Structures are given as C-alpha cells and as structure tokens.
C-alpha cells in the first residue's frame, strides 16, 4: 500500500441493512469496480433461510464470487459473503468466520452491531462500514466501533432511504465520514480505491 495514502488500504467492506435495504444492495454491488481488492460482508435482517435467495440474486447480477459465510472460512479478497440468517457472524484474528446462536441483539440475529464490532477489532483502520435503510438502530454501535478503531463509515442519506430510522440514528450518533444518496454509494466506494492506488 502506498505510504502517502490518507487512509490505510481498505481490506474489508461491511454492509449492514434492514427494511428497505435489499434494493440498495442489489444496485450497489453490481456497480462496484469488479477489481476492488477488498472482501465484502453483507449483514441484513431477513426471514429464515432467505440467504440462499440473496446469494442467488447477487450471483446473477455481479461478477464477484458470492457465497454464504461459513464458519471457519477464511475471508478472501474480492469475494462477497452473506451472513446466514439466525446466526451472529463474527471474525477471528486469523480472518476466519465464526458463527454464534446466542440471544438476539437489537431484536436481530444476525446483528449488524456484532459483525461490525468484530470487524473493527480484527481489521481496525482497514474496514469500511456502510449502513443502509432500516427500521431499528442495529449497526449504529458497530459503526461507532469502526470509527474508534480508525475505520471509515459511510451511511445512506436518510432522506433517500425507504426506512430512514437506522441511517438517521447513525448520522445523529456517530461521526460519519460520508453520507450519500443510494445511487452515489458505489461510485464513492470505487473512488476510495482509486486514491489508494495512487
């Protein structure tokens, strides 16, 4: 990584969303530069066993390999991982996944907070956390952790979100680096990597 880059090279993009986020994800992911050297983890609140549907949808729309995150899988760059429903998804120091069926957090399992916090612990400044549309505050604490550990935080502009509660809480409670309308998220992410490579 270039020594003069302002941000440390981003290795992990963690995307959290709830009600109203699916469309945003389905537009955002295919618009990403197909050669970004980072891994992506997507955590959304969904009905049981619909992760397969999301995996299929994204596989159809994106050139990136997309798969459900499996326990003990090592996170590989340029791969999209979907958090399975009904388990919390954590990251180990060796960059492998762990699953956990403990109590729901913020009425949610998977909880966005748990994965964000875990990503911040392990990847520190190399995390980009993104929070999208949603009806509860899951993910806000997680963004705070990412911030504290030197990572970057990006939030969907609440005024463009189907359900604005989640992104609004984030903007109010955490020092977010960038707030953008849904259709500008992908372009911004791509540009972060352009500057990294200079």
């Amino acid at each position, binding site marked *: 990584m270039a020594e003069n880059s302002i941000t440390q090279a981003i290795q992990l993009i963690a995307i959290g969303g709830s009600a109203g986020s699916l469309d945003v994800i389905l537009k955002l992911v295919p618009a990403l530069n197909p050669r970004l050297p980072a891994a992506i983890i997507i955590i959304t609140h969904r009905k049981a066993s619909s992760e397969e549907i999301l995996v299929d949808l994204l596989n159809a729309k994106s050139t990136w390999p997309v798969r459900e995150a499996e326990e003990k899988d090592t996170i590989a760059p340029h791969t999209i991982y979907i958090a399975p429903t009904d388990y919390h998804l*954590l990251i180990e120091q060796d960059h492998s996944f762990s699953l956990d069926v403990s109590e729901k957090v913020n009425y949610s399992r998977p909880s966005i907070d748990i994965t964000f916090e875990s990503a911040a612990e392990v990847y520190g400044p190399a995390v980009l956390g993104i929070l999208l549309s949603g009806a509860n505050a899951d993910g806000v604490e997680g963004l705070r952790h990412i911030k504290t550990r030197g990572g970057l935080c990006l939030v969907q502009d609440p005024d463009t979100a189907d359900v604005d509660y989640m992104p609004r809480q984030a903007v109010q409670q955490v020092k977010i680096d960038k707030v953008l309308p849904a259709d500008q998220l992908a372009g911004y992410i791509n540009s972060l990597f352009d500057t990294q490579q200079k």
Partner: protein
Amino acid sequence: MEFEVQDHEIDILLQDLMESYGYDFTDYSRASLKRRINRLYSLDKFSSFVLFRQRIKTDSTYFRRFVEEITVNVTEMFRDPLFYKTIREEVLPVLATHPFIRIWHAGCSTGEEVYSMAILLHEAGLLKKSLLYATDINPDVLDRLRKGIFPLRFIKQYSENYIQSGGKQDFSSYYTAKYDWAKFDEKLAAKMVVATHNLVSDRSFNEFQLILCRNVLIYFDRNLQDKALQLFDESLDTLGFLALGAKENIKYSPIYRKYKQLDNKERIWRKIA
C-alpha cells in the same frame, strides 16, 4: 460495548479455569468467547479485570454463572423444522428396525431438542423402546431439562415449528399450561437419561444409533471439532446417524470418508464404514 477484557487477560482467565476447576476452554472459537466474557463483565458491572478474575477463581457459585453465560444455551423446540421432518421420514423408519434404540443429544442445553425428539419417537410408536441420553457441560441447564418446564411465550413458535416438521397431533396435548409456563408430559421425560458430559475431556460412554450435536461445534476451533467428531464416531454404530446443526459440517474432518450425507442435504450423515 467496548471490549474491556483483552486477549491476554482472556488467556489468564482460561488458565485459571483449568487450574481451579479443570474446565478447558482454550480451544473454543475466540471471537465469540471474547464477546461473551466481555458481555458478562459489563452485565455484572465489574470495575477491573483483577476483581473479575478474583471472583471467578474464589467463588464457585459465580464460576457456575460464568460457565452458563459464556457457553451459549439458546435453544428451541423443533428448531429447523425441515431437519426434524427428515428425522421423522428418513431416520426413524430405520431406527424402527432395531429392537432397542439409543439416542445421544450432546450439548442439549435445557432440553427443548430432546423433548422434540421424544415427541417424534412417541408419534412413531418408538418411544417405549428408546432411551434418550441428554448431556451437557453445564449442570444448571440439565436441572431445567429434568423439570420439562418451558416458557409459555415461546409455545406459539414451537407449535408452528412442530406443524412444519410434519406434526399432525394437537401440539397442546403434550403440555399443560400453568401461569407463564408449559409443563411437558412426564411420559416424554421418562425415557431420558440426563448427565453432565464435557466434550473436551470426557470419553465415549455407550453405543448409539443416532447422535445429535447441534450448534455446539460452531463454538469449537477445528482441532476440538475433530476431537469431538472422533468421539461421536467411536460412539456410533455402523449405519448409525450423526446429526449436526444447520451450519455445521464434517467435511473437513478425518471421519468424513466414513460417512455419507443424506440426499436432501440436511446436516445428517450416515456411518457407512
């Protein structure tokens, strides 16, 4: 939650637990363990690691709380209904051919899984000739299992799960509701053998036709997973069944080549060699 208890302190705690109580958690997945330990630390409002450590070391009642809280006990009746449907349709008909059926639930927590199995056996007319061994590392969850009393607020979900698993009876015929609790029929519990058993350190104690260990291996690192799977392999009859949680797999373990997964891809394997 900012993590207060750091990695090196967790190493110290785990060392203490081994020396003072003989429990070995060193091969558990660290991320979850760390989160659970920190959760307990803030839940019980400790102000320093030194006090926390002291309390665990010297107060054996608190140590039990510690074990109960860092091992995750969350469970459900008929969790993953399609899994139970497969047990009904593909596993029980095979077990029915045996004169006597022994089933082991390893890491059964408060027993919702064991009661679910007892209901399936009852409906298949097999309960009378079955024994369900219910084991867990944690004696407190087993006390609750023995009582067979579960919170009434979950029963709606359980009865939906039951129906999705292919249940045709009236689910309420299996329990009596009283205040906020549902007490399950004692004829179900009559066939359960309940004992503590630690998958890290205890050995095989019997031979079974079906072993269930669901949502326990996700908390183990790969070595400990292999060790537990080895133990199950030693405890399983040839042509017996091994059933794991929805996100658990034996494909990276040395026992894998002796097993064949059921065709419908539920996490149930048959021992073929």
